[in-house]
């Protein structure tokens, strides 16, 4: 008896989702980009978690309000301030940690909202077709061609300083169309697949077909797009903050860059300019690498290679 046949009862006892996840994880681990991206993200995650520690150690390490009474100006790194201080004597290292928290918050929540909106609209348009599809897709087209940053800048100029959550919401509102296009295309192709016909013959209602048969096949793609959206959201937020339209009550990396610029330390304080700049580049890069790796995990063509004869 072959190995496979002997192993199969155990295979069956293990839950198939576990098996599938284990398989996905194995593919993912085999991908260098994915490993690097994951490593970097874990690092940023640790930074975000650790951002709560400095203010607890000493009030002067509070990223926003803490001021070192002995310094009160920009100073290079020292033992007291590992990455130096900014123009008011605030600790750059604790700002950097707080910035990681904000970046995650902004990136993930904006991306999540954009993906939920995009998936809902894309699936509806793709499945319903006809008039609904036309309306939704033209709306998507209209939003898609608008320059996001410019519009948000204009809104910010109109309504004054924006709250960080307003910014998140606006990023989401402007960033769902590209997701919905992809999801719609995927839904259209799924709709043609015989298993949808089979579900109809089995008596499944439209709701059941959408949620039970189409959505599970679309979700992995939506998650893939989410990692790419995160990158976009972080860059937009940083751009806004750098241009002076960020949430003044939040320490983000874009905000730090803006402070460097506004106080004229751009070319005199590299210890202040470089950390947030590098962090923004690295976090977007790592989300991108993660996305690329997930792309490979999800791509069925690459997956089946070697399993066929």
């Amino acid at each position, binding site marked *: *008896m*072959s*190995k*496979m*046949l002997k192993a199969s009862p155990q295979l069956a006892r293990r839950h198939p989702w576990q098996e599938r996840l284990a398989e996905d994880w*194995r*593919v993912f681990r085999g991908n260098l980009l994915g490993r690097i991206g994951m490593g970097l993200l874990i690092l940023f995650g640790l930074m975000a978690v650790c951002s709560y520690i400095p203010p607890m150690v000493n009030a002067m390490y509070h990223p926003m309000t803490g001021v070192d009474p002995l310094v009160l100006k920009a100073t290079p790194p020292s033992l007291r301030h590992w990455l130096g201080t900014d123009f008011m004597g605030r600790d750059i290292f604790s700002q950097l940690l707080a910035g990681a928290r904000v970046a995650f918050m902004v990136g993930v929540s904006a991306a999540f909202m954009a993906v939920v909106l995009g998936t809902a609209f894309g699936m509806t348009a793709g499945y319903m077709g006809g008039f609904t599809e036309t309306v939704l897709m033209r709306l998507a087209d209209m939003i898609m061609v608008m320059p996001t940053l410019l519009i948000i800048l204009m809104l910010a100029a109109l309504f004054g300083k924006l709250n960080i959550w307003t910014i998140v919401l606006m990023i989401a509102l402007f960033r769902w169309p590209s997701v919905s296009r992809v999801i719609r295309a995927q839904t259209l192709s799924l709709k043609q697949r015989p298993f949808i016909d089979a579900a109809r013959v089995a008596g499944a209602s439209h709701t059941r077909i959408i949620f039970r048969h189409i959505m599970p096949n679309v979700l992995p793609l939506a998650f893939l797009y989410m990692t790419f959206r995160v990158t976009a959201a972080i860059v937009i937020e940083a751009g806004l903050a750098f241009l002076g339209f960020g949430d003044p009550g939040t320490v983000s990396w874009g905000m730090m860059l803006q402070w460097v610029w506004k106080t004229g330390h751009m070319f005199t304080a590299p210890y202040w300019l470089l950390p947030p700049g590098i962090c923004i580049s690295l976090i977007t890069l790592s989300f991108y690498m993660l996305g690329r790796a997930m792309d490979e995990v999800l791509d069925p063509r690459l997956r089946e*290679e*070697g*399993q066929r*004869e």
Partner: protein
Amino acid sequence: MPLLCVENLCIGYHTKKGLLKAVEGVSFSLEAGSSLGLVGESGCGKTTIGMALMGLLPPNGAISEGRILLDGVDLAQLSEEELRQVRWRDVAMIFQAAMNALNPVQRVSWQMTEAISTHRPELSKDELLRQVEGLFQLVGLPLARLHDFPHQYSGGMKQRAIIAMALALNPKLIIADEPTTALDVVVQDQILKETKALQEQFNMGIIFISHDISIVAEVCHHIGVMYAGQLVESGSTDQVFYAPRHPYTQALVNSFPTLTGEKKKLTPIPGEPPNLIGTIPGCRFCDRCPRSEAFCKLEPPQWQEVEAGHRVLCDHC
């Protein structure tokens, strides 16, 4: 000397789960002007052999042992560059998914002249075109359709164009991998008849790969039955299909519905073929075999010659 001589061929694929031995210890030979049909279920290694003969194994596959002698030259030892010379000129292939083998944005005439001119750069444009016209007549395609795009062709016409392309350089050996699978019976019949006629006309060797025993029975002189990476029975078509000796061949024949003769009950083959990752000590068919005995599972079966030219890989025969 036979045109093609395959000796103890072993091919493995490196997969994530380990080495998959797709072909193990396969030997056969083919005379010029005769045809061999390789039959078996999908996954039995028949397509892999076809790909190996063309030097077109996927990147994770490799010939681990054995020789492929075409007119005395071992194809398994040739470099990629030398193989490129042999491909199409000496060995041509009619692919399984022939429908997709034509480039949709180029005219058929252009594609064929391009393909010929890479191997025969000395020919002028006019000569090339004349040769393509000759090929069109050979396979029964109307000359008026020479400059059409592939999508303007029907399935049968595309398949004919592919056959014309395979014949272009007068190869000694043609490998036809399920060439009629996607076609209707009437078109399939025409293509099969034409392939057979062309083979006789040009005295080529053909290796015909299919899972359908009625098709290979119609076209081929010799049959090799494959199961789980091994050749299990070989001989002339009459020997193999009228007097099958291996339990697997017998099961295949008994599970095939016929159009003529008395209507008898079909016997399905129970079970599934074994997984080819890892080693299988004994006979590969023993789990599904009605005649298997305890020792079948433990020791590899030996080849038996039951008649002149009729060989079976089974200890019970």
